């Protein structure tokens, strides 16, 4: 289904993207984001959003249950660490496989319906998984505590290869390289680039065109003789696998998994990332994920004292007033900012940042917008 030859334009897009991603530690350092923990989050949530965009952006199906796949990916990865080996490759493979399988099951049922019913079905399934992970599935998920590594895990392959048991809890490795700090980031970044490349190929393939056709008019697609259902299921499974990949990478950088990752507010977050960046565009979701994680990091760190320092140049009365107004939005209240941002974007800029940039572009440089490919037409 995929066209065999990689065109020059695709190659250059991927090269530029890789260059930007791999140099992130350098150019993000001046704005205080150049440390590995945050960079890992950028890459992981970028992947999650890219995958989500394959479903929501290309086909227009609004899923409210993608956090469930993220959770399944995490659990599968941690189990691979516990049972087999601390090497990250099997963990990632298992995470993707299991979430793909899970996505197939859920997608097979949910895709019988479209529109708001699809959203509610996916929401129902995600809540079901979340509730089960908290209650009955405790032997697998370890309930509220979350699944963690312990000292007496079997780790069959590791014990076969190494004779002596390492002291303390082992850390995740890729053939001897510890997956924390910068190596962990570069691992996530490479997978992000791979994921971006695949998404790029998908969006330009005949398969991607079918998905876009489904978004603009599913009925007409059916009239022209397409059986849209297999295409939809494939798209759903692919995007579920991306979510599982992101989930397993979370476990790679920090080997534990909890049920709260599957809650539906977590699904809401990825929707927001995708929309903030630009639905249906390739780079938009990555941009949105990065922005949200960056601002989450900055805003949650603020407290009243920091605010007073920030607004110290104002006269005292005014300073106190500004701090009182701003303080609910930072620190613990970061979600409030997120909610407000969410509403503003949907009300004024449903196409996200990419659409905003195009608008500015058209306004000031008088270029025709139709020449741009991959942009959202709404």
């Amino acid at each position, binding site marked *: 289904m995929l066209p065999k030859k990689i065109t020059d334009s695709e190659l250059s897009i991927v090269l530029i993207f890789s260059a930007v991603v791999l140099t992130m530690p350098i150019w993000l350092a001046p704005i205080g984001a150049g440390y590995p923990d945050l960079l890992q989050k950028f890459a992981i949530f970028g992947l999650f959003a890219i995958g989500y965009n394959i479903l929501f952006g290309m086909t227009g199906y609004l899923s409210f249950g993608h956090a469930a796949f993220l959770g399944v990916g995490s659990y599968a990865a941690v189990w691979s660490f516990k049972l087999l080996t601390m090497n990250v490759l099997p963990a990632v493979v298992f995470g993707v496989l299991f979430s793909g399988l899970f996505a197939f099951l859920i997608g097979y*049922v949910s895709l019988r319906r479209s*529109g708001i019913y699809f*959203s509610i*079905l996916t929401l129902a399934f995600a809540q079901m998984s979340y509730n089960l992970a908290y209650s009955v599935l405790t032997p697998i998920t370890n309930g509220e505590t979350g699944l963690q590594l312990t000292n007496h895990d079997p780790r069959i392959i590791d014990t076969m290869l190494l004779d002596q048991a390492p002291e303390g809890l082992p850390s995740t490795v890729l053939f001897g390289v510890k997956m924390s700090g910068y190596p962990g980031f570069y691992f996530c970044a490479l997978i992000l680039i791979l994921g971006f490349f695949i998404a790029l190929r998908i969006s330009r393939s005949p398969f991607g065109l079918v998905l876009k056709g489904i978004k603009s008019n599913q009925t007409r697609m059916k009239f022209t003789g397409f059986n849209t259902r297999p295409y939809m299921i494939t798209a759903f499974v692919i995007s579920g696998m991306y979510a599982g990949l992101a989930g397993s990478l979370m476990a790679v950088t920090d080997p534990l998994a909890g049920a709260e990752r599957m809650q539906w507010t977590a699904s809401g977050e990825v929707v927001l990332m995708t929309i903030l960046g630009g639905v249906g565009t390739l780079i938009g979701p990555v941009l949105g994920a990065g922005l949200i994680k960056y601002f989450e990091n900055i805003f949650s760190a603020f407290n009243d004292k920091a605010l007073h320092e920030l607004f110290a140049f104002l006269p005292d009365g005014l300073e106190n007033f500004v701090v009182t107004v701003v303080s609910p939005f930072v620190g*613990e209240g970061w979600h409030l900012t*997120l*909610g407000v941002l969410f*509403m503003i974007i949907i009300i004024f800029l449903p196409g996200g940042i990419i659409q905003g940039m195009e608008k500015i572009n058209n306004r000031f440089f008088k270029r025709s917008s139709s020449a741009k490919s991959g942009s959202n037409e709404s």
Partner: protein
Amino acid sequence: MDAIFLQILNGLDKGGAYALIALGLTLAFGTLGIVNFAHGALFMLGAFCAVSIQALLTLSKKVKDESITFFDAYKEQPYLEIWWGDIGTTIIDYAVPISILAAIPLMLLIGLSMERGLIRFFYKRTHAEQILVTFGLAIVIQELIKANFGANPIPTPAPDIVSGSAKIGSALGLSDAIVYPWWRLIYLSFSVVVLAAVFAFLQFTTFGMVVRAGMHDRDMVNLMGIDVERKFTIVFGLAAVVAGLAGVMYAPILPPDYHIGMDFLVLSFVVVVVGGMGSLGGAVAAGFLLGILQSFASMNEVKSIFPGIDQIIIYLVAVIILLVRPRGLMGRKGVMED
């Protein structure tokens, strides 16, 4: 037999809450065509209305505690008690019923301003965008409440006189073992009364007739020179009041915290889908039905056969209904069936 009767009762009061919220959801969908994810937030606002009224009534100042004579001890005494003595104590005791009076105008105002301020700009947008913007609004309301009231549940007790349990078992000639908290019985009857009032309003008044006509064929009613949009806005306000009242009355049953709205929203949406989008009777019937089903599923006998069934029964029913009969139990043919 006793156990079954008790489970039905147990399910009915939760079902009452589902029905009240779902009724508002389906009203908003049937009239304005809006999928409102912020409806759970209205329920929560109602519950916090009770919390604030209680806090307002118990505003206190420090006074010397006369009962301790060895040293100077101080205690908080509400102003109302200081001013009016026992009458003040009684008023504080009745905080929740009093909040109902306050909640009606307040929720109406909130509902109307929500509709005029935000929802009306989304009539013509896609359902996905409606879901997303109201989801954002729900987060905002929820976080504002969290910022003001903290993250912990706040107990709001019912009046003392109804704090005990009713011996319905002996009253109905069944086993004496069947006892049931008074407040839950009150909640059940309250929800039935509110539901009946809403239905009567829609069925027997001219206003209700216009609304029903508008739900059926909006353009036609418009052509007859009636400003349907205005009527629908009022209906939205009404839906907000119903959700708010459900919240006020639920506060003694479950101490409200900031995410109570979201918890109820997801379930109420499922209720609406099971009942049929836009069908009022369906929402009510499905609300009570799912409430009862849920309480049966949480019986130990059932749980030992299907572990965890109590957590997922509602979603499971919704999945089955959507696949077998997408328009819901009582949905109109052709409404959102694909």
